[in-house]
């Protein structure tokens, strides 16, 4: 499987993270990136606008 983004686009994404990756490390992550994309797609299935997250904000902080 291949990521949906090109390597040049991936370079930009890496720059945005600020991580000091070598070319080899970048290539390793690029090869695995499609698996993360697949997971991201799975959590982005349609939901009702009012679907709340699992975590609730509690004002009385402990």
């Amino acid at each position, binding site marked *: 499987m291949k990521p949906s983004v090109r390597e040049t686009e991936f370079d930009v994404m890496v720059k945005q993270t600020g991580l000091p990756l070598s070319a080899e490390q970048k290539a390793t992550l690029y090869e695995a990136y499609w698996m*993360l994309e697949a997971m991201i797609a*799975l*959590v982005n299935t349609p939901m009702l606008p009012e679907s709340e997250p699992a975590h609730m904000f509690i004002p009385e902080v402990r």
Partner: protein
Amino acid sequence: MDQILTIAEASRLIAEKKLSPVELTTDCLARVKAYDDTLHAFILLTEDRAMADARAAETRVMAGNAKGPLDGIPIGHKDIYNTAGIRTTGHSRLLEHNVPTRDATSVRKWAAAGVVLMGKLSTHEFAMGGPSFDLPWPPARNPWNPEHFTSGSSSGTGAAVASGMILGGTGSDTGGSIRGPAALCGITGIKPTYGLVSRAGVLPLSFSMDHAGPMAWTVEDCALLLQAMAGHDPADPASADRPVPDFTSDIAKGVKGMRIGFVRHFFETDNPVSPATLSGIDHALDVFEHLGAEISEVKLSPLAEYHACGWIIISSEAYAIHEPWLKTRFNDYGELFRDRMALGGFIRATDYVQALRRRRTLCQELKAAMADCDILVSASQVSEAPKITDVPKWGTMEKPSLTMPFNLTGYPAMSVCTGLGSGGLPVSMQLIARPFAEATLLQAGHAYEMAVGTRKRRPEMAMAEAAE
């Protein structure tokens, strides 16, 4: 000593003054010296502390002041549990010289219960990155065959308990890190309900997915250890403020009348398990039915959906914790941890929030599915342990985890050994209960262990030593 004792057995003998905690500890230390050059379960052996703890326990017992069933029991802590004055590394170069000033809450509670601290145990780097060969300490190996993997991240605890170097130990479980090594090392490990056991003083990986819990040879031993860990702790923002039930009083009650569901699609189609794992689960269902439980099939969303949701949450939360070091000390991490972790930097805030929203719907689904079930049965691991050199870097992403659904939902889950596979290594099943129903979970696991008697066989290396 001619056999390796369980905690329950040792505890009874100590209470009857037929076994000295000093003798028991000396026996465990001898095993550490015999096996640990091969197994690498310990990052730090605290021999002097162990003997001092054992002598103190012996004094209490002889004076009639024993603290309870854990007094004088040799244990170890996963090296992400802070221990005051004792190095706590997370199995990472980044914390190679880290000496905490305070104990984690669970460390303090077990010490108050009288345990003997044998040392600090190997983990995958920061509870995520193994098995790594580029860290200051080697990865733990499987006592059933040291060429094989323990799973992780509570790898040292799995290896040390199975080989009898300790009788029990702490683990942590963010996506399966107690249940995985329990499964591959052939022991029992319970990930309690989120909030039951304090995470205070345990190095965090993912705030909303991390669980602390015990690992031991039997279900009964896990119940004894859990009893001494559980309870409200104001130092943990997620700690549940509710009474802790007695986990051992009804443990032998059996499963008659219990409703037990099984999620067959998880382990037959979503992530198919080995024939030995499958037959172990099917046999367990037969055992439960024979013991009087009602068995039925349960269907949930595909395992991949639970896995993706959990993975996105873990990666996002862990990246937030590690980002400062990733930016400044990237190459001080082991390759496996830093590469897996770096992917978290590509997750957008909206994806994290979507995962949290999806998490709620999956929690609702599981709650509805368990309305008619006391226990669910699934698999813990797909098969016996692979060779330690055959574990792929991206293995945890390639196939959906069988344990992740219950980190995501926070439900209590336990790995129980069902026997040995064709390669002579353990296979297992996973039992799940409703939130805060650990007593029911332990009851079911104990009923199974008592019915099948699988707890007599230890790894060959440990059996040979015990016979000497």
